């Protein structure tokens, strides 16, 4: 069997095509969003919102509403509660985040356990890429397209929000509104990515690609290309690896992203660990030669 046949083999299964589609859409979306999250310093917020949407998704399932709606409501609820606990106590934000998202997540777990249904807890926690139905795929496609469009069309406002909120305010914009839109998109993206890698690993997809791209460039417009491209590669790599090694798909996708991050961290031409160590050595040598 040659390489092409080997690579084409998984694609002969519909479930594999769906798995790949969902992975790529989720990866690209999360990667785009991660560029802003990493720069604003919202990595923990990404963690919190992606976990906090769980009860929303379960409740939406129970009442038969779209998952995205439940996720949005609980995403905002989480952010409001975090802000509330932070502003009305002497606790720091990380403590507030820790309290709120674990509470909501546990509430979600309890809801799942008492809901008579065929929802498999494991599928929500760890993702269920290989069991994506065509209805799931449609939902991912629609949510993904809407989120993608808003992110791209309003990217300059989001970047200004990340860089200088006071200036945005001075221009008569509402930084609060921009932040709220970004959080809403975070909640929607969490729903998409939940299908792919599960609640626990969503946060990886929301941080690693942006962080990787940030190490590679100091142009934000390039980050917006590099991060999704790397994430899509990692997604494909992960799905294939899980097929051939018969291993957890979500786990493989995130591991692939982490591998790319590690490679960039070590070998990036300008900011990589090895390049900076070598440059420092060169500098010492040339200084010694002068002396």
């Amino acid at each position, binding site marked *: 069997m040659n390489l092409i046949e080997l690579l084409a083999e998984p694609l002969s299964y519909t479930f594999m095509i769906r798995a790949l589609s969902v992975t790529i859409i989720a990866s690209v979306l999360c990667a785009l969003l991660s560029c802003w999250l990493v*720069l604003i310093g919202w990595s923990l917020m990404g963690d919190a919102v992606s976990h906090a949407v769980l009860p929303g998704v379960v409740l939406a399932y129970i009442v038969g509403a779209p998952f995205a709606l439940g996720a949005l409501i609980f995403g905002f609820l989480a952010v409001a509660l975090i802000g509330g606990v932070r502003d009305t106590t002497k606790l720091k934000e990380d403590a507030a985040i820790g309290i709120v998202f674990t509470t909501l997540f546990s509430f979600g777990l309890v809801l799942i356990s008492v809901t008579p249904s065929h929802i498999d807890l494991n599928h929500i926690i760890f993702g269920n890429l290989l069991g994506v139905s065509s209805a799931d795929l449609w939902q991912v496609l629609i949510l993904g397209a809407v989120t993608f469009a808003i992110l791209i069309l*309003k990217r300059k406002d989001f970047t200004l929000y990340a860089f*200088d909120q*006071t*200036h945005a305010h*001075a*221009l*008569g914009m509402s930084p609060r509104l921009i932040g709220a839109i970004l959080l809403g998109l975070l909640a929607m993206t969490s729903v998409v990515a939940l299908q792919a890698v599960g609640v626990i690993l969503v946060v990886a997809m929301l941080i690693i690609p942006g962080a990787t791209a940030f190490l590679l460039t100091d142009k*934000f417009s390039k980050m917006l290309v590099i991060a999704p491209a790397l994430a899509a590669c990692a997604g494909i790599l992960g799905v294939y690896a899980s097929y051939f090694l018969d291993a957890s798909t979500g786990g493989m996708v995130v591991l692939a992203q982490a591998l790319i991050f590690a490679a960039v961290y070590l070998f990036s031409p300008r900011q990589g660990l090895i390049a900076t160590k070598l440059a420092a050595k060169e500098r010492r040598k040339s200084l010694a030669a002068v002396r």
Partner: protein
Amino acid sequence: MNTQCNADLAINVTDATVHYGQVQALDHASLQLAQGTVCGLVGMNGSGKSTLFKTIMGQIKPDTGSVKISGTDPQQARKSGKLAYVPQSEAVDWNFPISVRDVVMTGRYGQMGWTRRAKKKDHAAVNEALERVELTDFANRQIGQLSGGQKKRAFVARCIAQGASIMLLDEPFAGVDKRSEATITKLLREVADEGGSVLISTHDLHALPDLADEAVLLMRKVLMHGRPEIVLRAENLALAFGLDPMKRDAS
């Protein structure tokens, strides 16, 4: 002061009081700044300089009093692009992946459509602003790769590209070399000569007489507002900085 005069004022803060929880940051502070003037805001840390800036910017609603910008409501003034702000160095993320040109371009956002796509006139305004602050050769550098003075000039260029008639600068001379300080001083004088108004909070008292037409002493309220040579006299500074040698001698 009559009403006709009030309409000409660039900044008109009357009787503003601001609290943070139990702490009073501004105590019935009033500040009037005419068009075409440069005004230095002097006071020790915690005297309410930043709070006064935030009040003028409309980021804080005062408990008492009101703020008018060019005779109009601050929100309206912001929407029309009249107000510009140069942040303190500590408030900026210098690792942010943005070029000098892109920073200056954000000054134009208020005049662009909702996707903020730059048109010819926006590029022209940015180029002209970069030229005026002598940063044309550095336009494509990442913002953190400038010297302290160049960084400040980049943000001043953003105000110029915006076409703002009122500029607020928070500690623009901290960590700035003499040459950049001179360039910025010259620029701000030009802005004022063209009818713009500039409010600067600063610790650099020596630079004030060359730069500013007026100085304001702040200690939660405006203690004094007048020509810099007068406001900066030792006995007056003592009022704002809490050192009162006369009083100490007496006790």
